[in-house]
């Protein structure tokens, strides 16, 4: 597949699958303000999905629509990072997943706002503000809950221990990233990794949380090799489109 299309799909798939996970909280969050915040983040993420898929579909030039990309691809063609598909084990996992994603997403969007590609640049300039807001919000909660009660600290640490190995998949790189960087479309991956490390080290320290020392690096999502959760996400998400092929909604 064309490197640019792959790049756009990876970005869009991240937004969509995280959006799905986020939306699962509607009506089930610990306080009303979080119901609202999660719905709002989900909404932003679905909006970003539409934009990235729009760019992918246009570049691909096969007449597929953003909805086709969302609802008619099988699992092995989804290229999101493994992090975003991890389940809502508890609200702590959901917050930590969001925070780790945001810590990667913001520097990425900030750099993409200077992209050589007009569509990408426009997209990033349009969405960077909401991504910044997401990071501000999730950073704040990570600090308050990490440095909160004994139980909230424990839960946040458990979430970090579980999710940290998946950040490897956010930061993984391959020839697609190299080509995107060469063409000035996307930033040099090392730059984002550095920003991610700086953000997480500072914030997690403030949160009195410890980054786990582990050799475990969970990667593969960007090549379509997912965790066993992914099949269930897609079966649910795609069920209507699959059940009524060709219908318009």
């Amino acid at each position: 597949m064309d490197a640019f299309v792959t790049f756009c799909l990876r970005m869009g798939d991240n937004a969509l699958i995280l959006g799905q996970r986020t939306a699962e909280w509607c009506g089930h969050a610990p306080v009303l303000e979080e119901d609202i915040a999660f719905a709002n983040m989900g909404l932003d993420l679905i909006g970003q999905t539409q934009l990235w898929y729009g760019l992918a579909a246009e570049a691909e030039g096969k007449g597929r629509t953003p909805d086709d990309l969302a609802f008619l691809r099988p699992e092995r063609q989804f290229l999101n990072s493994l992090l975003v598909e991890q389940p809502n084990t508890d609200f702590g996992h959901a917050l930590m997943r969001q925070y780790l994603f945001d810590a990667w997403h913001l520097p990425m969007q900030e750099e993409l706002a200077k992209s050589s590609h007009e569509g990408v640049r426009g997209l990033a300039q349009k969405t960077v503000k909401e991504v910044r807001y997401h990071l501000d919000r999730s950073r704040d909660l990570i600090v308050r809950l990490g440095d909160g009660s004994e139980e909230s600290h424990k839960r946040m640490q458990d979430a970090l221990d579980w999710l940290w190995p998946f950040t490897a998949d956010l930061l993984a790189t391959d020839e697609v990233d190299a080509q995107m960087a060469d063409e000035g479309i996307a930033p040099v991956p090392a730059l984002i990794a550095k920003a991610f490390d700086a953000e997480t080290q500072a914030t997690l320290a403030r949160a009195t949380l410890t980054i786990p020392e582990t050799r475990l690096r969970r990667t593969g999502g960007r090549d379509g090799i997912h965790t066993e959760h992914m099949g269930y996400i897609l079966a649910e998400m795609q069920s209507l489109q699959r059940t009524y092929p060709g219908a318009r909604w």
Partner: protein
Amino acid sequence: SEQDVAFQKRIDDGIRIEPKDWMPEGYRKTLIRQIGQHAHSEIVGQLPEGNWITRAPTLQRKAILLAKVQDEAGHGLYLYCAAETLGISRDEMTEQLLAGKAKYSSIFNYPTLTWADIGAIGWLVDGAAIMNQVPLQRCSYGPYSRAMIRICKEESFHQRQGFDIMRALVEGTEDQKAMAQDALNRWWWPSLMMFGPSDKDSVHSEQSMRWGIKQNTNDELRQKFVDQTVPQAEWLGLTVPDSELSWNEEKGGYDFGEPDWNEFMEVIKGNGPCNRERLEARQKAWDDGAWFREGLMAHAEKQSAPIAAE
């Protein structure tokens, strides 16, 4: 009493009552009950619709539904704030809900079984809600009135979006059209019940109207809803599931059948299809979220603790 007379005069003169004003205990209680019910309805109302967010059939529909559910949670927030001005906390109201002491709109005790139900809820349930809520913008209690003004603006969006889902379905395949008709069949009567029992059986109506908390009777609003909705169903090419439905030229409105009030009473009493599931979901959210709320409080306490105490 003299106070009561002066209070009633303010109401009759159309002057808004504000939190710091004196008010009869019954007025306060009635408002707390009504605003609380309304707030709880917004909160519980997230559940049947939230059930379809992850399965919405297009990205656009998913985004619209997310925005709608977000609005509902937001309405819940305005309303809890309005109720708090009457001297009850959000936590107290939540406890009343979870204990089964406070009610919420019984419509949310029906399950959402197909995507068309999301359309039907927007079209019929939000339609009925607006019918109920528009007059409440003129409610005598200031904070409630102002909350309703904000809420009504958004609800009419929701209704249009629901109608648009139905439109897409009836313009679609046979399966989709059948899905739309099936949803109308299941949601029609529960929607009519949203206006409450017939005037002759309505307990709180009269006093509420005198206090300017209520502006129209249940039956008036139900009639208005039917008159508005039946032509929309016809436009969609759907059949309203009421064999007694007919246009009454004389009264300039529709005659229609009586909802099954036994069913209504059972649902109110907790015996509807989803009462247990809805309360269980809210209870679980509350229980599972305790550590989150406590963690934030613990952090706040640390922040406000004097340096010397460290």
